[in-house]
């Protein structure tokens, strides 16, 4: 993958916002790379009790990749929408990888009914959340997307409304119901 300047990545983002699908395809690997490096960096710190929010990662990636002076906030929302999706995948992959490492040893590893019967841990188990979001997507795909954008991408309700082309009221209602439903699924 060629090195790309903030200007050209910004151009890709704008081109995509204007409807150029190929621009998105070029953009995704860059955003992914950036997010993953950041995530890995933070996770290597291994400072106990260190609190890291994915939204912070996405923000950092945005600042590093995008030339913020030449872009409108709608484009920003679109960037975050893509980033949220990638962030989710990265974090869930990390969580699964940790799980594999944890269960190493001489045994042949067998992935099991992982999230269908999820353990109840105090913190939100990312794998379980990922699965619950998939389940929610089957019931109401927009609600699942709202949570993804807010939780993994850190988008504000207004930005989510812009990305999903619905009213802020709708996003608020979606969030309320999805949050309650997921709480029951994961508690």
């Amino acid at each position, binding site marked *: 993958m060629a090195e790309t300047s903030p200007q050209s990545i910004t151009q890709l983002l704008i081109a995509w916002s204007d409807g150029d699908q190929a621009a998105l395809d070029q953009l995704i690997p860059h955003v992914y790379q950036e997010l993953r490096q950041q995530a890995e960096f933070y996770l290597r710190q291994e400072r106990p009790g260190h609190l890291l929010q994915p939204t912070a990662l996405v923000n950092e990636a945005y600042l590093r990749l995008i030339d913020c002076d030449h872009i409108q906030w709608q484009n920003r929302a679109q960037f975050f929408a893509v980033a949220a*999706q990638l962030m989710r995948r990265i974090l869930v992959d*990390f969580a699964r990888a940790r799980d594999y490492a*944890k269960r190493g040893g001489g*045994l042949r590893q067998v992935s*099991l009914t992982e999230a269908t019967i999820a353990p109840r841990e105090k913190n939100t188990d990312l794998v379980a*959340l990922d699965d619950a979001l998939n389940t929610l997507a089957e019931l109401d795909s927009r609600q699942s997307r709202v949570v993804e954008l807010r939780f993994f991408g850190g988008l504000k309700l207004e930005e989510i409304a812009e990305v999903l082309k619905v009213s802020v009221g709708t996003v608020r209602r979606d969030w309320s119901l999805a949050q309650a439903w997921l709480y029951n699924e994961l508690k």
Partner: protein
Amino acid sequence: MTPERYQQIGALYHKALKRSPDERAAYLAEACAGDEELRRQVEALLVAHEQARGFLVGPDLSLLNPAPDDRKPIATAGQRFGQFEVVSLLGAGGMGEVYLARDTRLARPVALKLLPAAYTRDADRVRRFKQEARAASATNHPNILTIFDIGEVPLGEGVTHYIAAEYIDGQTLRGRLLQAPMPPREALDVAGQAAAALAAAHEAGIVHRDLKPENVMIRRDGYVKVLDFGLAKLRSGRVGDGETAGPGEGETRVAFSPALPLSHSPTLPLSTPGMVMGTFAYMSPEQARGEEVDGRSDVFSLGAVLYEMIAGRVPFDGKSPADVIAAVLSHEVRPLTDVPAELERIVRKALSKDREQRYQTAKDLLIELKNLKLELEIAARLKPAAQGEAKVERKPEAETRTWSVDQIPDVAPVSALLATPPSNSPALREMLEPVGGAVPLDSGFYILRPTDEKFRQAIARQDSIVLVKGARQVGKTSLLARGLQQAREAGAQVVLTDFQSLSAEYLESIGQLLLTLANAFADQLDLDVTPDEVWKPNRGPGVNFEQYLRREALLKLSAPIVWGLDEIDRLFTCDFGGEVFGLFRSWHNKRALDPAGQWRRLTLAIAYATEAHLFITDLNQSPFNVGTRLQLEDFTFEQVAELNERYGAPLKDKAEIARYYRLLSGHPYLVRRGLHEMVTNNLGLTELEAGAVSEEGPFGDHLRRLLISLNKDAELCDVVRAVLQGKPCPAPESFYRLRSAGLAIGESTRDIRPRCQLYATYLERHLL
């Protein structure tokens, strides 16, 4: 839960939230109008709403850090879970453990997955899990991991849930790829079987979403099993035809695959140790973009897997995951070298970036894979003869095999599909049975096909209705007979009705017919009460029959009952046929509504000829839309070769088999008939070919009957003429009619062609 239900719950949730907390209970009681479950669900959400403030505002990534693993194995060798006895631990994963166990009842090995009590306190989750495991098992396909049983046993302070699944003795495709390069034909075979699994899953509304060499297993006998529908999505409402359709929401996790660390893979030089990155290489562009996936995404993944099997490397590669994603999204796939052009075309089509350009269904891909595999096989067999290489001499009788299936290079073992052949003795000719009608149960000339296994499974599962259909003389009755025999051996009570043998008077009215059928039950099951004693004239015949069956057979016998109905197409032309089929359907529905009821113990195994479709002009009238359907297929090239061996190899070499196969395709009856003729009259292939279409020849009766039924419909004759002249079939309807009648094959009105060369020659002679 269905999306509709979720919307309904959501609407009430929002309305209730608008009211003050003390008004909510009364509001919901009224709005839910007696639907207690609905009220309970909405209230649970309202409670959650109060507690969930701040929930999901941001996770603490420190929870990704590894925790000390202090888990002890759940079970020890010898421990029993239901009928399953633990043998050894196969592996452990995040949420449970998988053991090799023994099914004490059926004495077979199973993979037993145990879910610790700690994870199963949530009744709702467990319930959904079970429903989904059931739904997954409803896909019932020989290439998909079979779930045998689910259950629970008290253990320690809680309850341990278990799932028993088929134990697969073999290796993953990844393991196979690490050993040696794969020849194209083996790759096609594996890909074809995987495509068949996907097609079945898609039909049941399940998208795999994570197909890769790690979760394709190759059993020792060559059977391919796709497992780990680990990310699989189950779309609501489309699973099965009724009884097995659970609520259908959410995730289906049927993950039994050994998770191989990807660092072991030479084809994926992805640096980060321990990271799970493999799926990116098989992920479709739409998945990479986070868009909705459908069956076509699985087609892409299978294309990537096929590419790797052939090329020994993944189609999209890169130094980092980001590079792999970039390649998936926008790079052209690297060209394949030294492979047939057709194979490259198939792979490229499957790997199209735009899903509209791909095969639209796994089934389409499957068909092309199958055709290509066949072409390659025939080409490979024709080659030596064409080059004049080593002409195979007919060997002495003690060693009649001119070639054995195992000796053909590059072909996946097919021996698994074939029953043990009789030893080729000099007395072979004397023991030859006449060809025609059902193949006797003890015959050495019965060729097992995948449908045999499916039929056996359906009977073992006690499905409500099992349909065996196919063109005339394709082997339906033989299959039915074997299935019933196995049911008998397994302790079921079996009743057989052959509709062809019913004399016309019994088919005059529905009352007459049902009474006859009830008498058959009384006779064959030796029931104490005869229908005459309880048949009431003031009740409809349907009610009489149903009550008789329930009270006198199902309630009084403890064993399951399997009712075989052969040649039921005879009912298609009766006025009351629809009523009878309606009755069968209603039993099917009763089972779905009352799973614990008596109807659960009744299985209808129905065989009918699709040839009847020649006369059903409206194809929507097809009498069955419920049950497990088994379409009997023609013999494959290998199966024809195997049958030839069993007949003492009258076809002398590969080239002859190929010629014979072209003449008859795999038409089960014709193939047997021809071999029988050659052996009994000591004919060579050339002589057989010469007399093949003559009225006096071995196929004369068959061909004549074909022509007679065709001549009843002038319009259809015109269509056949067009097809013979290589024109497309004018209407889809006639295409389907010709195909279900076994007259023509092909996948569309354009590519329709006569089923075999014999048909083409004969029909040309009589129709053109």
